[in-house]
């Protein structure tokens, strides 16, 4: 009898421990969410403000710190969309796309290739070449701007999209190359070796093995290139002079003349629009960071 009740109590105790654990888990989960949401709010604050303000009237924007417009108006969007040029914003989005598409695509391809070359092969001059890659990152580009401009002038690429993406397509963004090199060096070679034995040449190994394994990193590269190109203002400003070729980033600042009064709500409204693709793209891409291809491959 005693043994029975003893086991009963131990079982009860076990249950109690279980319940306690479960409770603790729930609490820790809610704490995690609370922190996430709290900090998240700080992160989102400007976006919310921006969206709110884009529906405000011009005079309300600075006079009231509240997010919610007193009497919301779509004017900012409607007027902003029309622009002060013969074109609507659609045109500028299209131009941005014409730059972003080849740029992102070829950056991903070339950066991956070059990173693969650096991370997985030995060849004469590799050290120096890699050093040059890093070096190009270190010089403030203010001072290369003019020489670069002269260069593209001589090639005859001014007022075209080419200066904006061709250098990137030739792995000109050392940032990405360096990043992929670091990622690649962290990936064990086993799978590549297997592929080599399977008869893959190095290019096939790259395409079929390395690229899938590097997927999260390559997606980051695309994301960054997308965002940065979207936001890049100085490049288009300098190389593009025809209004019909303006990308969004340039069009956004088209009406801002600090010496004059200008319509903030238009600008904010268009800023909101300009951010939207980036937000959407990021939201769609982030799921690749949920579960990459658990690299260990096999478990027992």
């Amino acid at each position, binding site marked *: 009898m005693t043994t029975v009740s003893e086991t009963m109590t131990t079982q009860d105790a076990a249950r109690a421990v279980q319940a306690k654990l479960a409770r603790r888990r729930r609490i820790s989960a809610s704490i995690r969410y609370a922190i996430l949401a709290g900090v998240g709010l700080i992160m989102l604050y400007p976006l919310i403000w921006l969206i709110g303000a884009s529906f405000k009237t011009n005079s309300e924007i600075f006079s009231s710190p509240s997010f919610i417009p007193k009497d919301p108006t779509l004017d900012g969007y409607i007027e902003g969309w029309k622009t002060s040029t013969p074109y609507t914003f659609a045109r500028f989005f299209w131009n941005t796309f014409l730059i972003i598409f080849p740029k992102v695509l070829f950056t991903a391809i070339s950066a991956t290739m070059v990173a693969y070359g650096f991370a997985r092969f030995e060849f004469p001059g590799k050290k120096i070449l890699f050093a040059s890659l890093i070096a190009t990152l270190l010089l403030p580009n203010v001072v290369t701007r003019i020489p670069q401009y002269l260069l593209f002038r001589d090639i005859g690429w001014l007022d075209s999209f080419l200066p904006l993406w061709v250098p990137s397509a030739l792995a000109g963004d050392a940032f990405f190359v360096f990043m992929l090199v670091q990622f690649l060096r962290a990936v064990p070679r086993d799978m590549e070796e297997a592929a080599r034995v399977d008869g893959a040449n190095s290019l096939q190994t790259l395409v079929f093995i390395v690229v899938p394994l590097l997927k999260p990193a390559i997606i980051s590269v695309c994301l960054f290139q997308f*965002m940065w190109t979207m936001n890049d203002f100085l490049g288009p400003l300098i190389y593009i002079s025809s209004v019909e070729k303006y990308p969004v980033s340039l069009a956004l600042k088209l009406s801002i003349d600090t010496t004059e009064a200008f319509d903030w709500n238009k600008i904010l409204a268009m800023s909101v629009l300009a951010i939207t693709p980036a937000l959407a793209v990021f939201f769609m891409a982030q799921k690749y960071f949920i579960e990459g291809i658990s690299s260990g491959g096999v478990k027992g």
Partner: protein
Amino acid sequence: MGLAYVMPYLVGLLIFTAFPFLYSFYLSFTDYSLMSEPTWVGAKNYEKLFTRDRTFDKSLKVTLIYVFTTVPLKLVFALFIAVILNYRLKMIGFFRTAYYVPSILGGSIAIAVLWRYIFADTGLVNMFVTALGFEAINWFGDKANALFTITLLRMWQFGSAMVIFLAALQSIDRSLYEASAIDGANAWHQFRFITLPLITPVIFFNMIMQTVQAFQEFNGPYIITQGGPLKSTYLLPLYIYEKAFKNFDMGYASAIAWVLFAIIMVLTLVAFWSSKKWVYYAGDKRS
């Protein structure tokens, strides 16, 4: 073989990068007002820079302070958030996007306006500060504080470092967490002894890149404090920019840029050299 893969880079280097790069080096030995041809002046720019330019000294000091506070803070913060956002939680996609938002906003003009609002004398931050019973802080007007607002701005835009960390966290073999769990590792131990060492290649990358970017920080102080007050946020890139595009002294600007280049280069070399001790590359050749 490897050479074939780095060919695109080599071509790009020769066509697009090498000339501007070297040309700017040449310019640093010239007097070049942009509107007329550069004239060779030898090391004069450098000489002035090192001997008579108090602005440079001051700016360099500010830059160093900025770099060495911003980079560690930002890295730690980005990594911390990345680790949290690596969990499989509900709505994780939303949170990740939310946390990336500041970086998407990037150089958007709204940021400048907003940041000034947040740190204004009656702004959000001071509302907190006074609510906690302290005296309101003069963020932009006090030279001791202004730089910190820029640092915070950059920390707040930790998104790209975070994304890179996230991508790296993905590539860690799960079975190592299992093994360590059995070894009795708690979450902190796993982070310290498994996660951290295994993402050292990417930590290293982020460290280098953040340092480089911090040394080249321009937008933050430019749009928010314009270098002031009392040049307390007058980072070197601002100075270079001003020399180049306001004073039209491209030769001198180039000289400053190359000195900055040399400083970053030295730091980078030190980092690369030290990385042999603390960065683990699973994929480097066995032999």
